[in-house]
């Protein structure tokens, strides 16, 4: 927790003070460092949840279902952060909170898929059935992640493209700030995942004591 907090403070210093100011957008472009990092962590968290769901279906061990739930929930939080920060940035730069651009549309679909996943988990009471259904749903729902990532590469979009086959399309000073920020968000993801898994273990311990 302390490491993630310290790293985040460094990332804030890079994003707000050390990174160069973008010539056209000005200071508001600095949202970019946290917008991209949050979205990136969202993808990683959902990938971890996808792998955990695969492992649950092949091994039927409850710990993989717990990991899938914890990581999906965090993926949902990070995707929400990405959408909210992107929307605020869009209002400042495009003059609108929302537009049906391919990246924004697939982000909305992704958000709804994982909102439904969390609702589904709350709606099924029998633990084994819930874990099995959630894992199958997670495997199907993950299709939206690569689709969201590739949307600005496959279709004409207003959303800017930072990384393509030729590498990063930003100034070196901005790239350093972005990488520090991605690292800080990754540390935050690991910290929150450990906390969420601890909550999951406590819930399991209480349930098994009650079943005695």
């Amino acid at each position: 927790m302390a490491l993630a907090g310290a790293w985040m403070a460094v990332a804030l210093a890079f994003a707000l003070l050390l990174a160069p100011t973008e010539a056209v957008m000005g200071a508001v472009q600095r949202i970019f460092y946290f917008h991209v990092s949050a979205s990136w962590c969202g993808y990683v968290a959902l990938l971890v949840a996808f792998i955990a769901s695969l492992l649950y279906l092949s091994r039927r061990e409850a710990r993989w279902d717990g990991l899938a739930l914890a990581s999906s929930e965090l993926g949902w939080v990070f995707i929400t952060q990405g959408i909210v920060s992107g929307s605020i940035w869009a209002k400042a730069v495009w003059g609108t909170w929302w537009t049906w651009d391919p990246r924004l549309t697939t982000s909305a679909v992704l958000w709804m898929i994982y909102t439904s996943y969390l609702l589904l988990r709350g709606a099924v009471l029998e633990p084994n059935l819930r874990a099995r259904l959630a894992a199958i749903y997670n495997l199907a729902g993950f299709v939206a992640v690569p689709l969201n990532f590739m949307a600005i590469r496959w279709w004409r979009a207003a959303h800017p493209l930072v990384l393509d086959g030729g590498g990063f399309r930003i100034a070196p000073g901005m790239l350093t700030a972005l990488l520090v920020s991605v690292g800080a968000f990754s540390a935050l993801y690991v910290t929150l995942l450990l906390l969420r898994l601890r909550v999951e273990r406590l819930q399991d311990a209480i349930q098994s004591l009650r079943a005695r």
Partner: protein
Amino acid sequence: MAYLLVGFLALWGITFAYLYVMARRQSRLERELELLRGEIAARGDRSEE
């Protein structure tokens, strides 16, 4: 500049809200687990008597 501030507040607001909810849930569950363990231990003592 105002949008930058709102953007950062939104990001950190979401992060701290999640952290707060999880920390509260953790301490509530820890208390509940302690109580349950105490109840089970007391039941065990009574049945031994």
